[in-house]
């Protein structure tokens, strides 16, 4: 029950504190979207009652009018936000340095310590990030190729029944590959902090770790995914009931949901470090073998 144990052990105040940093940085990066859309829409409407008319027009028609009326504005804004997404992808390297730094070292989760770890780990994590493309590119190729073959099969045979079976299989395999690569990336970073070896060595020991602990990791990922996906159901339900609430309440409610997502993601990362600590790299093979027989 190691996976369950570490997962429960990850629900700590420090996990929640680090989740606040994650949430805050996400919000910071999203502010241009909130403000940009707000300005663009109110500029486009310029006093028009279009949105108030959505019962008569239909919501699809309202959005269509809005987008087609300010097509250029929306294009420019979406382009800018796309660039922002790229910047955030790099910034998330920095953030993950802080998260894993705090969890692996057992250091205080105060902002100062978090930022120190993040800065200290940035270069090493960036190298690992680049190295992991060695894994991502072939697996992505396999997934894409699989889909192309599947589509070709459907076109040639017209066998929709089999296609309907094979499509979830393809989806499942792709999901497993995504889970696998995510886990390798995570444990390579953890090993890098635990052992301070070279990039290549960390990458390989990350792969090795994932390979040895597949059942435990499946359990761990499952525990992460269930509440994480639940927040999506919650947010769509909340958006439906939020209509009459003041905007600030809606906004706060949605932010709380985002923070919950950050918390679950952090709990997973925390649990991963605890698991890695249970099975250190330099443990003797005998000990390793003995632990293998342990239940997951």
């Amino acid at each position, binding site marked *: 029950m190691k996976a369950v144990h570490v997962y429960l052990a990850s629900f700590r105040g420090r996990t929640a504190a680090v989740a606040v940093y*994650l949430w805050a940085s996400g919000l910071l990066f999203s502010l241009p979207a909130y403000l940009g859309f707000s300005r663009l829409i109110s500029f486009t409407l310029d006093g028009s009652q279009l949105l108030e008319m959505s019962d008569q027009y239909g919501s699809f028609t309202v959005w269509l*009018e809005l987008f087609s009326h300010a097509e250029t504005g929306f294009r420019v804004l979406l382009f800018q936000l796309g660039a922002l997404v790229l910047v955030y992808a790099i910034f998330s390297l920095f953030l993950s340095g802080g998260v894993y730094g705090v969890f692996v070292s057992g250091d205080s989760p105060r902002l100062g310590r978090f930022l120190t770890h993040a800065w200290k780990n940035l270069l090493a994590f960036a190298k690992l990030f680049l190295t992991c493309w060695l894994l991502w590119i072939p697996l992505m190729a396999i997934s894409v190729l699989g889909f192309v073959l599947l589509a070709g099969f459907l076109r040639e045979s017209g066998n929709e029944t089999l296609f309907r079976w094979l499509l979830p299989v393809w989806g499942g395999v792709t999901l497993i590959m995504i889970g696998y690569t995510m886990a390798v990336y995570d444990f390579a970073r953890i090993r890098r902090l635990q052992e301070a070896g070279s990039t290549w060595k960390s990458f390989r020991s990350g792969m090795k770790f994932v390979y040895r602990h597949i059942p435990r990791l499946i359990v761990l990922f499952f525990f992460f995914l269930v509440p994480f996906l639940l927040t999506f159901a919650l947010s769509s339900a909340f958006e439906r009931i939020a209509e009459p609430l003041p*905007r600030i309440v809606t906004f706060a409610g949605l932010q709380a949901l985002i923070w919950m997502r950050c918390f679950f993601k952090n709990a997973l990362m925390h649990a991963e470090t605890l698991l890695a600590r249970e099975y250190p790299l330099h443990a003797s093979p005998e000990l390793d073998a003995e632990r293998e027989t342990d239940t997951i």
Partner: protein
Amino acid sequence: MKKAFKGNRISALGVLLAFFAAAAQSVMANADPPPGPEPIVEYAIDARLLPANRSLEATQVLTWRNPTQIAAKTLRFHLYYNAFRGPESTFMRERGLQRFKSRRQDKARRYGGIDILELSRIGGNELTEKIAFIAPDDQNEKDRTVIEIPLDIPVAPGESIRLRFRFQLKIPEIFARTGCWKNFFFMGQWFPKIGVFQDDGTWHCHQFHANSEFFADFGRYRVAVTLPAEYVVGATGNPVSNINNADGTVTHTFAQDRVHDFAWTAWPEFLQLRRQAVVPGRDRPVEVVLLLDPQHENARERYFQSVIFAMRFMSEKLFPYPYDRITVVDPPLGAAGAMGMEYPTLITGGHISFLPEGIHFTEMVTIHEFGHQYWYGLVASDEFREAWLDEGVNTFFEGEIMEAYFKKAPSLLDWFGIRIRDTESRRGPLKRIPVLEPVNQPSWHFLSGSNYSSHVYNRAAVFIDTLKGYLGKEKLYDFFARYARQYAWKHPSTHDFIAALNEVAGQDLAWAFKQFINGTGRLDLAVHSLSSQRMENDPASYRNEVLLVRREGFFPADVLIRLRNGREVRHLWKDPGRWKRLEFTHESPLHSVVIDPEFRIPLDHDLVNNSMAAQPSRKESQRAALKLGFLFQTLLGMLFM
């Protein structure tokens, strides 16, 4: 009924009878179907399908009656199948010119065609050698879709001619309506079909164009198809006989009166399902035959229920469906080119089994194609020259039936929070028309395939929707009922349509058709400005001013003026000036102005400028921005690794 009483000396009994007849008629307004047409053509075709060769051999005896006052010295025939003869046919050339062509289709395209091996006049001379290919629309010498045959002895007015054909088809891989895919065959536009001889002594016999559909005279069809026993066959009309032949083939014979085309399909895999549908105004039920891809078993009810619903709707609103059978064909996905097409008493639907059920594609296609039974099949407008009378009117009815079928739920798409009504889906293509053209023009004159469909389907349907708002639903439906009954079997033109509409509307609507059907007018009504000034001599009241402008086009519209104290003022804006200033003094200043508050004018191109608030609130725009911003924040959250 009216005619019978006219000119009679009206006795007391006559008055009484007339009264009862009128009363009965008003109760069962649409009960009796209009009388059928005088047949002009009679086809007897004997065809043998050779699936392994992808070919067909047939003999055809055609009896044609000259319905005009002018002798016919020549005959013209469509050989539609030659559209697939090669890349130089007008059909293929026009498809190539279209912007949105699919490369896959080009690759998969296998050519086909029709050859007339023998042609003779029964009781007359051999005509095979006299066949000449002509291209009346574009002079394309490579196009072989129309032939002309000079006659030694003309066909006198009212006289008939009988011709015997022997012809052969090479069947193409299906990508546009007709052809085959593996051992699935859909045969449309497959036999030599005579054109329409017009009152001025000319032939209406156009080439097969990429964007145009069809037009023909009504008549009788009797078609025998011989093919291997394992094939399940569906066709226009009613089955007459099935005869097992000594060579292991079966001859299926179908016949139908009062139709203007004949299509059939054959596939060993078909699941054949039948249901009897009780239809208002008919004493016998209609047999609904569903030929289903066995992989689509779970779509069975979606097909049956939507086609029966559409049949009852049209029977109730227009007149009872006059045939005894409707065949619904569900083509396999590989033969998607056959999906969504109408033929007399036979339609093809479309089902894609891995699409979620919230996408109502299957219902939409089935309802649309059934609607054609009236506009294409029975009223039978000219799809070459005035396609909107069929596709536009039918798309409008598709929306009406879809809304009724799905009640208050979003009728086209209801999936993952995305909700679209069928009627909403038309304004998208309408807004993206690159060049505005008249809706009412020959189909092959349009700039592109998408311009054709955005005009003929969407713009025309949105125009009729707008007429519905203007005249009211009841009056518009009353018009369609009268129009359909008056012109059933008669091939009405746009001119007839307008005349009939004017009569029911009690006003001349030429101004609307001139702009939006025969012209290139766009409609955009807008609130230009509004202001409220406190009166100098009476500080307790305000001088309110609203300025409305017609940016493009003319259409009368309701204007709703809201005052800040909650009072509402209505104004009917109908004078044709480009602008209109509304001024009034009131104790309350203006709150907002909305043109067309009930959204009766979907033809209005731009809805953003249809309303204006005196003091705009940012509440709704912030709410919308909140949705989009949250979407972005969620996306970012997913990216963190």
